[in-house]
C-alpha cells in the first residue's frame, strides 16, 4: 500500500483541499446560518424595509445634526466597506499632522463656541477605515453641536448617547465606546430632524 512520495504529496493536498477547504467552511457556514443568522450575515440594520447599514460597520457623517464617525482613510470615499484600509501614516509624517490639523479645524468650524480640546480618536483614522465607534469623550464633544442643530435639549441627546454606549467587556477588555450609526438612527427616530 506504500505510495511514492510524489503521489502521496499530491493525494494529500487534494484530500486536505476537500476536507479543510470545502467540507470545513461549508459546514461552518451551514451551522452559522442555522444558529446565528443575524451575525453570520453582517448584523445588518434595516429601516422601513431597506438595509441602511451594519451595526458593526461605520458610515461617514458630515451633517452637523449627526454625530460624526472617526475619520476613515478608505478610497475613494470614507468608510468604503468594499475596500477596508488605513492611512498607514506614521505619527512623524508631516502629511498626517496636516490632515489632523485640518480635521480639528473642521470640527471647530462646525461648532465655533466649543473650545474644549478634541479627543484623539476623533481626528485620527481608524485601522479598518470602518470603525463604527467613537469614544464617549468624542460623543460628548459633539453633543452641543448636534443638540443645537436639532433644536433638542442637550439632556435628551445625552440620554441617547448613554443608551448607545457599550462598556468594557467583563470590565477589562477593550474601551468604553459609542456606536455612531445606532446613535444617529436613535436621533432620527426622535423626529424633529429638520432636513
Amino acid at each position: 500500500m506504500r505510495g511514492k512520495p510524489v503521489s502521496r504529496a499530491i493525494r494529500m493536498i487534494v484530500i486536505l483541499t476537500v476536507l479543510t477547504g470545502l467540507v470545513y467552511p461549508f459546514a461552518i457556514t451551514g451551522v452559522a446560518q442555522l444558529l446565528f443568522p443575524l451575525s453570520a450575515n453582517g448584523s445588518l440594520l434595516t429601516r422601513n424595509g431597506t438595509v441602511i447599514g451594519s451595526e458593526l460597520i461605520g458610515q461617514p457623517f458630515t451633517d452637523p445634526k449627526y454625530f460624526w464617525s472617526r475619520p476613515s482613510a478608505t478610497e475613494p470615499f470614507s468608510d468604503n466597506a468594499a475596500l477596508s484600509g488605513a492611512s498607514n501614516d506614521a505619527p512623524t509624517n508631516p502629511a498626517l499632522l496636516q490632515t489632523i490639523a485640518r480635521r480639528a479645524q473642521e470640527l471647530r468650524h462646525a461648532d465655533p463656541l466649543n473650545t474644549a480640546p478634541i479627543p484623539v480618536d476623533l481626528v485620527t483614522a481608524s485601522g479598518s477605515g470602518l470603525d463604527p465607534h467613537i469614544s464617549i469623550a468624542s460623543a460628548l464633544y459633539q453633543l452641543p453641536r448636534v443638540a443645537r442643530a436639532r433644536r433638542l435639549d442637550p439632556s435628551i441627546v445625552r440620554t441617547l448617547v448613554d443608551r448607545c454606549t457599550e462598556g468594557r467587556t467583563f470590565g477589562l477588555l477593550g474601551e468604553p465606546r459609542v456606536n455612531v450609526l445606532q446613535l444617529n438612527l436613535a436621533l432620527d427616530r426622535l423626529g424633529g430632524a429638520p432636513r
Partner: protein
Amino acid sequence: MTIVGAGYIAAYLIALLLLSKPLGAYMARIYQGERTFLDPVVGPLERFVYRLAGIDPHEEMDWKSNAIAMLLFNLAGFILLYLLQRVQQWLPLNPLRFGPVGADTAFNAAVSFTSNTNWQSYGGETTMSHLTQMAGMTVQNFASAATGMAVLALFIRGLARHSARTIGNFWVDLTRSILYVLLPLSLLLSLVLVSQGVVQNLSGPVRAHLLDPTVDASDRPVMEQSIAMGPVASQVAIKHLGTNGGGFFNANAAHPFENPTPLTDFLLVLSQGVIAAAFCVTFGRMVKDPRQGRALLTVMMALLTAGILATTFAESASVPTMTALGIDQHASPLNPGGNMEGKEMRFGITPSALFATVTTATSCGAVDGMHDSFTPLGGLVPLVMMQLGEVVLGGVGSGLYGMLVFVIVAVFVAGLLVGRTPEYLGHKLEAFEMKMASLLILIMPVTVLVLTAVAVVTAGGRAGIHNPGPHGFSEILYAFTSQGNNNGSAFAGIDAGTPFYNLLGALAMLIGRYWLAVPTLALAGSLARKNAVPPSDGTLPTHTSLFQFWLTAVILIVGALNFLPALALGPIVEHLMMIH
C-alpha cells in the same frame, strides 16, 4: 499605562499559561501516537485519510525521507494555490467576478501562504474569490501550520531518541496535527466568532443606503455603502490558531467583520499564542523531563512580557507632534488617549499594543491596528520580536524548533567557557550539530539585511516607500524582516504589490522557511543517531534559572549584534527626531 491596561496584560499572560498545560499534554499524546478522547470520532477519519493517500502509519522514516516528503507536500500545495488564483475567473463562488490574480502577486501569495508567512501584497476583498479564500488560502492555513508542527514533532523525537536511524513519519504527524489539533479548535473558535459578529456566508456584497450621503474623492455623490461579505469566520479561526495571519479583508483583524468585539480580539490573540506555548509542555513530556519544557516557556514568556510592556508604554504616551495641535491624548474612562492613528476604538491602546507584540512574537502577523502608524518605539518592538528569529513563542512548531537551536548554541557556548564537551538531553553536541545550528541562526539575518540593502539602493525598492525620512527605511527593513521570518505583518504603507517586492519577498520567505526547516531535520537525524551520554557532574543542567538567564542573554546578544545598526538608522533615529 492604566490599571485596566495592566489587568488586561496580566489576564492575557495567565490565560496563555493556564491553557498551555492541558493542551500541551494532549498534543504530547497526539505525537506519541496514543489514544485521546477524540479517537472515536477522528480515528476513522484518520485511517480513511491514510488509505486514500497511500500512507502506512506505522512506517518509520529517516530525516532525509521526511525532508523530501515535507518539501514535496509544500511544493504540491504551492502549485495548487498558484493555479487556483490564476483560474478563479472560471470557477464558482466568485460573486464579484474577479479576474485572475496577476502572475507576480499570485506567485508571492502562493509562496507566502505555503510558507506560513501570509504576507499579503493584495487586498482580499478586491482580489480573491470566495472559492480561492476557502479552497486556497484556508487550506494552506491548515497545511502550512501542520507542516511546522510536524517538523517540530520530528525534531523533538530526534532529541528524545538515542541510537536511532528514524525520527518518525512526516505524513502521520501532518495528518494528526490537522485532524486532532487544528481542525477541532478551528471548529470551536469559528462558531464563537460568528456568535460575536464575524460573518460567515457565501454572498456577494450587501448594499446599504447611507444615512447621510457623502461624496467621493472626485466630488461625485455616494448614496450607498457596499459591504463586502464572505466565508470569513472559518478562515479567521485557523488564521490565528495556525499563526498564519493572512486576512480575509485588507484591514485584517482591524476589520469589524474579522474581529468585531473586544472579546473576539482577546480570543484571537490568545489563539495565536496558545499552540506555540503548549508545545513547550509537549516537548517536556516527549523528552520525559517536563522541567526542560517549562524552562523554555519561562524564557519565552519573559521576553514576551517585556515586549508587551514596552509597546504599551510607547503607544499610550502622548505624541508630541499631536499635542502641539491641541489634541487631547490623556487616557481616562471617557477617552482612550495615546496614539490612536490606525487603531480601532473598540480595542483602544493596550489591547492593540499587546496584539502587535504577540502577533510579531508568534510569527502570526495578523494585525488589529496598523503597525506603520505606531510611534517609532512602538514599531521598534514588533521589529525586534521578529528579528530575534521568531523564537518568542514563534510560529506553531517553527517557534520551538528555532528556540531549541538557540538552546544548542547556548549549551555549546557555555561548554566552551568551562572547557567541557557540551551535551543536551543526553546528546553530545559535536561539529556537525554546531555547523547546522550556526547555519540556522545566521541565514535569517543575512537574508533580511542583504535584501533590505538591495531594496534601499535600487529605484524599484525605494519606489515602494510611503512615509518620508527614517520611517521609510523602517518600512523596507520591516518588509524583509517580516518575510524573512515568515511573520507576514507589515508596515503596510509600503507599496509591495510590485514585481520587485513580490519576487524579492518570495525569495525571503522561501529561504526563511525551507532553508531553515531542512537543516533542522538534518540536526534531528544526527541527534537521534547518537548514543546516550549519561549525565555526569560536568553536565550543564538546562532547566535551572541560571540556564534560562543564559539562554535569554544568548538570544538577545545574537539579535542585537545582527540588527542594532539597522534599527539605529530606522526607528531609533526617528524617535530622537520626534522628541526634539
